[in-house]
C-alpha cells in the first residue's frame, strides 16, 4: 500500500499535464473538475496512506521509484520517505490544498486564463508534495525550486500589470538567494558526509560531528539561509507582502498554508543536524522572534487587507521558527498545521470580501460589512480568534506549546517567552483591527454589494472554520520523529510553568483584542489623534514601509547592481579589442603613406633593405 506514495504527486502532475496540453479546448466546468479533482484524489490517497500513522502504530516507510542520477560516488534517487512529519505535511497540503482548489473553481470562474491558473496550481501541489516526501535533499531541492517557480508564475498571474511582474520576480529572486545558500549547504553536506540521503546524512552527522563543530554550524547556517528565504523570515522577508499581487486563493495556498512553511519543514526535517549546532539553533529562535515582532508592528499599520494578512503570516512563521529554535519541534509543526487552517480561512474570507467589493483592497474603504457579507464575517471572526490565540481555538494550543517550549530554554528562555507574549499582544491588536474596521462601524462605500457566494466557495470556508476552531484537538503523529528529543520533552514537564504564566498567555491576546476594540470599534481612543504626535507619525511610516528593508536592499544591492550593469553595457573587455582595432587602423594610416605608387622608391627601399640585411649578416 505504501507504493501508492508515488501516486500522491502523480495525480496533480497528471492534472497539470492535461490542463497544460488541452486546457484551451476544455470547457470551464471540466477544467475545474480536473483541477480540483486531481487534488481531491491525491487527498484520498493521502488518507489511505496515513491511516496507520494516525492510529499511532506505524514505522517510517521508504520507497525508491528510480535512481535519478548516479555519478561516481554521488547518487541521488527519486526516493520517497514517509514518517509522522511527512504525514502531517501531506495531509495539510492535499487537504487544505483541495479546499482551496475547490474555492478557486468559484473564485476564478470569470478569469480568462482559468485553465492556466489550475494548471499551475496543480503543478504547485505536485512540487510541494515532492518537497515533503523526498528522501534526499536533492529531490527536496527539486520540489523546493518547483514551488518557487509556481509561486512566481502565480504571483505574476495577471501579467499585464508590470507591478505584478515585478512582485513575482522579486519573490523568485529573493527566495533564490536563500536557495543558493541551501545549494551550497548541499555541496558541503555531500563533500563532508558523502551522501544527500536525509536519514543516512543525519546518522552520519551525529556520528562524525561533535556538538558545535564547525561543519555542523556551517551546514546548518546554509540550510537556514534556504529556510529564511522560503519562509519569508528576516532578512529575506521582503518578498511576501508584495507577493499578494497574485489572486487570493494562491495567497491562501502558497503564501500562507504550504510553500512558506517549507522552511519550517526543512529545519524540522533536519533537526538532528540543528541539535549539533546549538548556537545556530538559538539563532533560529532569535530570527523567529525578531521577525514575529517586526512583522507584527508592520501588520498594525497596513491598509491593504491582504498585506495585513501577509505580515501576519510572516509573524506566525516567526513563531514557528521560535519554536524550532527552542527545540519545541512538534509544537512548531503543530502551529504549522493550525496556521494552515486559520490563515487559509482568513485568506479565503478575504478573497470573498475582495471579490464581493469589486477588487477593493483598502480596509478603510470598507466598514460595517458584517450584515452584507455574513460568511466572510464568520470566517474572519473565527480565523482572527484562532490567529490571536483565543482560548481553546486551534491557534491557542499551538502557540501555547511554542511559548512553553521557549520557557524551557536555559538562560534566554524567559526573554524569548516575553518576546513571544508581546508578539501575541500585537497579534490580538492587528487581527481584530482588521475585523473591526472591515465588519463593524459605519459602512464606507460599496453599500449595496451582495456577497459573492456559491457552494464551491462557501463549503471550503465552513470546513476551514471547523478546523480553525477545533484543530487544536488534533493529535499530530510526530512523536516518533522527534522521539530522541524525548529527554527534552521530559524537561518540559519538569520545568514548572506557573499558573501565572499560563494566565499571562491567555490574558495578553485578550488585552490586545481589547485595545483594538477601544481604538477601532468603540472609538474611545482615536488613531488620528495619536498620529498627531511626531514620534508616532515617524514610527507609523517606518513600520508601514516594513521597517525600511525594501529601501535598504534597494540601496545596498539593487541600485549598485543595476548601476554596474548600466555602466558596463558595452562590455569593458571589448574596449581592449577595440583598442587593437584602433591601433591597427592607425598603423594602416601611417604605413599607407609609404605606398606612394612610385615604383622607383619601392625598388630603392628593397635595395636598402637588402644592403642592410647583408651588412647585418656580415657583421654578425
Amino acid at each position: 500500500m505504501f507504493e501508492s506514495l508515488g501516486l500522491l504527486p502523480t495525480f496533480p502532475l497528471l492534472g497539470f499535464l492535461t490542463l497544460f496540453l488541452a486546457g484551451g479546448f476544455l470547457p470551464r466546468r471540466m477544467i475545474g473538475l480536473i483541477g480540483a479533482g486531481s487534488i481531491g484524489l491525491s487527498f484520498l490517497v493521502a488518507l489511505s496512506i496515513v491511516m496507520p500513522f494516525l492510529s499511532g502504530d506505524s514505522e517510517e516507510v521508504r520507497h525508491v521509484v528510480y535512481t535519478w542520477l548516479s555519478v561516481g560516488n554521488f547518487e541521488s534517487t527519486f526516493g520517497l520517505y514517509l514518517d509522522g512529519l511527512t504525514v502531517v505535511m501531506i495531509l495539510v497540503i492535499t487537504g487544505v490544498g483541495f479546499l482551496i482548489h475547490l474555492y478557486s473553481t468559484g473564485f476564478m470562474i470569470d478569469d480568462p486564463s482559468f485553465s492556466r491558473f489550475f494548471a499551475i496550481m496543480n503543478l504547485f501541489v505536485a512540487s510541494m508534495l515532492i518537497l515533503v516526501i523526498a528522501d534526499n535533499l536533492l529531490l527536496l531541492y527539486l520540489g523546493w525550486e518547483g514551488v518557487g517557480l509556481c509561486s512566481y508564475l502565480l504571483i505574476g498571474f495577471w501579467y499585464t500589470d508590470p507591478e505584478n511582474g515585478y512582485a513575482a520576480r522579486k519573490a523568485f529572486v529573493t527566495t533564490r538567494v536563500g536557495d543558493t545558500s541551501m545549494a551550497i549547504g548541499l555541496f558541503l553536506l555531500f563533500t563532508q558526509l558523502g551522501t544527500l540521503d536525509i536519514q543516512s546524512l543525519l546518522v552520519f552527522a551525529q556520528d562524525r560531528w561533535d556538538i558545535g563543530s564547525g561543519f555542523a554550524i556551517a551546514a546548518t547556517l546554509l540550510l537556514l539561509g534556504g529556510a529564511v528565504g522560503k519562509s519569508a523570515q528576516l532578512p529575506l522577508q521582503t518578498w511576501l507582502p508584495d507577493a499578494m499581487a497574485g489572486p487570493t486563493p494562491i495567497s491562501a495556498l502558497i503564501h500562507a498554508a504550504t510553500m512558506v512553511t517549507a522552511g519550517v519543514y526543512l529545519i524540522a526535517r533536519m533537526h538532528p543536524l540543528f541539535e549539533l549546532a546549538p548556537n545556530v539553533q538559538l539563532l533560529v529562535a532569535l530570527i523567529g522572534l525578531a521577525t514575529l515582532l517586526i512583522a507584527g508592528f508592520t501588520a498594525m499599520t497596513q491598509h491593504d487587507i491582504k498585506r495585513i494578512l501577509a505580515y501576519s503570516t510572516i509573524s506566525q512563521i516567526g513563531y514557528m521558527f521560535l519554536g524550532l529554535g527552542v527545540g519545541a519541534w512538534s509544537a512548531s509543526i503543530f502551529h504549522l498545521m493550525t496556521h494552515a487552517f486559520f490563515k487559509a480561512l482568513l485568506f479565503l474570507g478575504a478573497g470573498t470580501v475582495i471579490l464581493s467589493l469589486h477588487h477593493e483592497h483598502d480596509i478603510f474603504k470598507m466598514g460595517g460589512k458584517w450584515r452584507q457579507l455574513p460568511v466572510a464575517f464568520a470566517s474572519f471572526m473565527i480565523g482572527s480568534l484562532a490567529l490571536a490565540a483565543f482560548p481553546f481555538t486551534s491557534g491557542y494550543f499551538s502557540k501555547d506549546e511554542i511559548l512553553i517550549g521557549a520557557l524551557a530554554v536555559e538562560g534566554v528562555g524567559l526573554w524569548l517567552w516575553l518576546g513571544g507574549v508581546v508578539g501575541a499582544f500585537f497579534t490580538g491588536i492587528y487581527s481584530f483591527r482588521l475585523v473591526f474596521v472591515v465588519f463593524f462601524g459605519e459602512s464606507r462605500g460599496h453599500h449595496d454589494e451582495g456577497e459573492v457566494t456559491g457552494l464551491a466557495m462557501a463549503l471550503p470556508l465552513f470546513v476551514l472554520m471547523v478546523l480553525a476552531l477545533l484543530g487544536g484537538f488534533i493529535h499530530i503523529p510526530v512523536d516518533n520523529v522527534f522521539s530522541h528529543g524525548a529527554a527534552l520533552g521530559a524537561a518540559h514537564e519538569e520545568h514548572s510553568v506557573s499558573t501565572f504564566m499560563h494566565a499571562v498567555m491567555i490574558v495578553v491576546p485578550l488585552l490586545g483584542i481589547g485595545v483594538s476594540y477601544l481604538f477601532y470599534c468603540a472609538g474611545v481612543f482615536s488613531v488620528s489623534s495619536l498620529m498627531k504626535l511626531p514620534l508616532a507619525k515617524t514610527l507609523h511610516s517606518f513600520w508601514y514601509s516594513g521597517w525600511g528593508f525594501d529601501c535598504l536592499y534597494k540601496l545596498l544591492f539593487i541600485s549598485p547592481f543595476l548601476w554596474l550593469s548600466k555602466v558596463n553595457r558595452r562590455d569593458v573587455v571589448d574596449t581592449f579589442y577595440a583598442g587593437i582595432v584602433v591601433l591597427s587602423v592607425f598603423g594602416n594610416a601611417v604605413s599607407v603613406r609609404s605606398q606612394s605608387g612610385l615604383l622607383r622608391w619601392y625598388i630603392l627601399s628593397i635595395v636598402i633593405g637588402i644592403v642592410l640585411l647583408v651588412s647585418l649578416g656580415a657583421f654578425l
Partner: protein
Amino acid sequence: MILLSLVGVFFFGGLLAWLSEFVDVRLPRWVAMLSAVICAGLISRLVFMVDSGGVGLLGWVDEFEGSWIPSLGIDFFFAADGLTVLMLALTVLLGIVSIASAWDEIKERAGFFYFNLLWTLAGVVGVFTALDLFLFFFFWEVMLIPMYFIIAIWGHENRRYAATKFFIFTQVTGMMMLVSLLCLVYFHSLQFGEFSFNYNDLLRVDLPKSIDLWVMLGFFAAFATKLPSVPFHSWLPDAHSQAPTAGSVLLAGVLLKTGAYGLIRFTIPLFPQATALFAPIAMSLAVISILYCAKVALAQTDIKRLIAYTSVSHMGFVLLGIYAWNELGLQGAVMTMLAHGLSAAALFMLAGGLQHRIHTRDMREMSGFWIVAPKMAVVALFFSVAALGLPGLGNFVGEFLALLGAFSVSIPAAVIAVLGVIFASVYSLWVMQSVFQGPSLRQEGKDSTHEALLDLDRRELFFYGVMMIGLLWMGLYPQTFLDFSSGVIEDLVMSDDAAALYAREFSK
C-alpha cells in the same frame, strides 16, 4: 567507417545542395535536411554500439584509419567513444533544428547557404571525431570559414563587422594552437625519432617543464576563445546577434561545445602537469565568466545579445566543471554542454522567430506578447527557466554536478560561482517580463508594427517540443546520458596523474 561517412555525407551533401540550387531554388533545403537525417540515422547506429558505460578511454566504438601524409605521420584517423557519440548526437539534432529554422527565413542564395551550413556541420563532426591532430586542426578551420560566410552574407545590419571579428578571434587563437601543436609534434620526433600527429602517440610526449605551460596555453587559447571564456568572449555577442537564426543556433548549440570538447579531449590529457598548475587560473576565469557575463547580460536591450552573454555565463560552468577534473565536475560539464546546447539553441530560435515576425531585436519595443502569442510565451518560459537552472530540467543537473565537482576542489570558486545562479534568475525572468508580460502594445493601440506577430506554427512547435522533451529527459533521467560518457570520464580522471597533482596543488 560510420565516422568517415558522417563527414562525407555532410561534405557531399553540401556540394549537392549548392548545385541543386540551379535546378530549383527550393531544392537545397530538402537536400540539406536529407543529409542531416541520413547522418542522424548513422549516429543512431553509433548510439547502439556504445555499451552503456562499458567504453573507456581509448576504447573506441568505431574508428577509421587511412594514410594521408605518411612522411609527417599524418593520417586520416577518426575515432569515437561514448563522449563523442553524445556530442555527435547533439550536433546532428541541432543541425536538423537549424535547417528547420532557416527553412522560411533564408530565401536569398539558398544553395550557397545550405552548402555553408552543411560544411560547418562537417567541420564540427570532424572536430569531434578526428584524433589525428593535424586532421583535427584542418576541421577546426573548416568549421570556421563557412560560418564566417553564413554571418557575413545572411546576417543582420552589422554583419561584416561581426563576421570579421569572429574570424579574427578564432583564427588568431587557432594559429596559436597550430604553433603549440607543431611544437608538440617536434618534441615527439625528438623523443621517439619520428613525426606523428596521432593523438595516442602525442599523449606520451613529455615536454620540458620550461615550455610545457606555454604549449598548453596555445591550446587553451584556441579552446577558451571558442568556449568562450572571459576575456576572449567579446566576439560572441556580436557574432550571435548578427548571425541569421540558423547560424546562432549552430554557434550556440554546437560550435561553443567544440571548445569544451577540445579542453576535455586534448588540453588536459596532453598537458596534465601544466594543467594542474593552470587550473586555479582557469577556474577563476570560469567564475569571472559566470558572474561578469551574467551582469552584462542584464543591461542588454538587444535580445540576441542578451542571450549571447548568458551563453558565455553558462559555458563558465562548463569550464569550471572541466578544470575541477573529477568525475562529478566533468560529467557536470558534459551535461551542461548538452543541456545548454538545447536551451540556448531554442532561445536563439525564439529570438530569431521574434525578429522574423516583428523585424526588431530591441526588447524596449516588445511587451505583452503573451496575449497575442501564448504558445510562444509558454515555450519561451520553459527555456528561460531551463536556463536559470530549474531542477527537473537538464541544465540543473549539469550545473549542479559541475558545482559539486568544483566544490570538492575549491570551495571559494564554487561558492562564488553559485551566485551566478541568482543572476541567471534575474536576467531570465527579466526577458520574460519585458517581452511576454506587461501590457500588450497592440491592445493599447499604441502600435501597429506588431500586428504581424503570429503564434508558433506546427513545424516550430514540433521542433521546440523535441528540444523540450530532450531537456526534460536530461533533467529527470540524466542517467541515459551520463552512462554514455561515464566510462570515458572515469578513465580520463584515473589515467592521468592529474588527479593526484590536483590534490597537491590545491592543498598548498
